[in-house]
């Protein structure tokens, strides 16, 4: 078989691996976003103990490798007699990890909103929850979109380590293809290019959104 024929042979497996990687990463980013909002609320509204706990959480998840967090989430519950599915451990590890990074990103976004807006909203009779969802979150999303994009790319790349738990993501598909074809160079290069495609698409999508929201503002 020629190289082109072999590459065509790899395609269906690589496409299915890309789908798995893409949806696990997206799920983790979305879960991580809501968890990060929760961390922000805890940090600002629950006094010194809450703020201290959030700080420890963020420091730990930013200071340890994602692979180690994954292994801890998979094996520690087992040590206490709770069996956890590998997909669940993977989503939890990616989501909890991303929550820590996103909470730092969101913190900068919240800080950029003038305080007078919050006071004005309060005068209009909005309650804290309405202020959060209708005044703060939409603006924070717009302000932090570039940072959230690079966090999404980090999660897509970081998710390659979940292949150690035998989840059929892009990286795992690579290993399976090598086991059959015994051609690691071309297989792993194709896998790397598939990741590059995913991360480049995300970057292009985000810059298009940023561009459009800028035009809307000027219109």
């Amino acid at each position, binding site marked *: 078989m020629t190289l082109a024929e072999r590459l065509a042979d790899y395609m269906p497996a690589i496409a299915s691996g890309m789908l798995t990687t893409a949806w696990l990463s997206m799920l983790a980013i979305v879960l991580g976003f809501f968890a990060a909002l929760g961390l922000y609320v805890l940090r600002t509204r629950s006094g010194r103990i809450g703020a201290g706990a959030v700080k420890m959480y963020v420091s730990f998840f930013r200071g340890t*490798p994602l692979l180690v967090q994954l*292994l801890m989430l998979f094996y520690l519950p087992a*040590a206490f007699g709770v069996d956890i599915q590998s997909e669940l451990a993977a989503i939890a590890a990616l989501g909890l990890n991303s929550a820590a990074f996103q909470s730092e990103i969101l913190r900068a976004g919240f800080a950029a909103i003038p305080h007078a807006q919050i006071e004005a909203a309060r005068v209009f009779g909005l309650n804290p929850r309405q202020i959060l969802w209708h005044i703060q979150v939409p603006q924070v999303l717009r302000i932090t979109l570039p940072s959230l994009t690079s966090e999404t790319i980090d999660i897509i790349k970081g998710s390659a380590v979940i292949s150690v738990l035998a989840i059929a993501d892009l990286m795992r598909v690579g290993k399976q293809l090598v086991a059959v074809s015994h051609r690691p160079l071309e297989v792993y290069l194709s896998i790397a290019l598939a*990741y590059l495609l995913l991360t480049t698409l995300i970057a292009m999508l985000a810059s298009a959104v940023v561009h459009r929201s800028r035009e809307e503002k000027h219109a």
Partner: protein
Amino acid sequence: MNFELIIDILPAFGHAALVTLQASILAIVIGAAAGFMLNALAQIYPTTFGIFYRGFVWLIRGTPFLAQLFVIYFGLPQFGITLDAMQATVIGLGIYGAAYFAEIFRAAWQSIPNGQIEAGRAFGLGRRQILRHIEAPQAIRLAVPMLTNQAILILKESSVASIITVPELTMTAGTIVAETFSYAEPYLLLGLIYWLLALAFAGLGHGSEHWLGRRQTH
């Protein structure tokens, strides 16, 4: 929690921490030096080298380190280049780091206003003097927090080397689990050790920021 077990496995973890530090520090030094060179070449030859530079950064920053490591460790032998796991890790992490370090140096360099360089020229300073006395001190100071952050990222990324059986911290935890059949102590200790190492790196970064700041005011 079995404290006797923790005492028993501490020496193995200590030894593994040295392997992790060795791989990380070597990769940080290689990556920072290569990143510095890459940025310098891209600044001096923006058209010819610029395309290669942007392609390299795009490729390295757009793909997982694990995939890069697999290409180097499993793929290169096809060209007759066979590296052991530790060599592949140091070289792979060094190349990976170089792309990020180069971008940090670029950002630091671009943040120095052009007016300063023109002012230096007006005072009769040569290109080399401007580089040494005006650009470099400021660029380094601006870059230190980002460099510290990148060093921590490389330290954490080195855990991936466990997958190609480098006997560093993460692989050692797995080995201990296989020998002792207890999961809780090795994995809790593993997380704690990485956390402490990252905090130590951050502390070193803060220290050098202070030191550089003090030196500059004299």
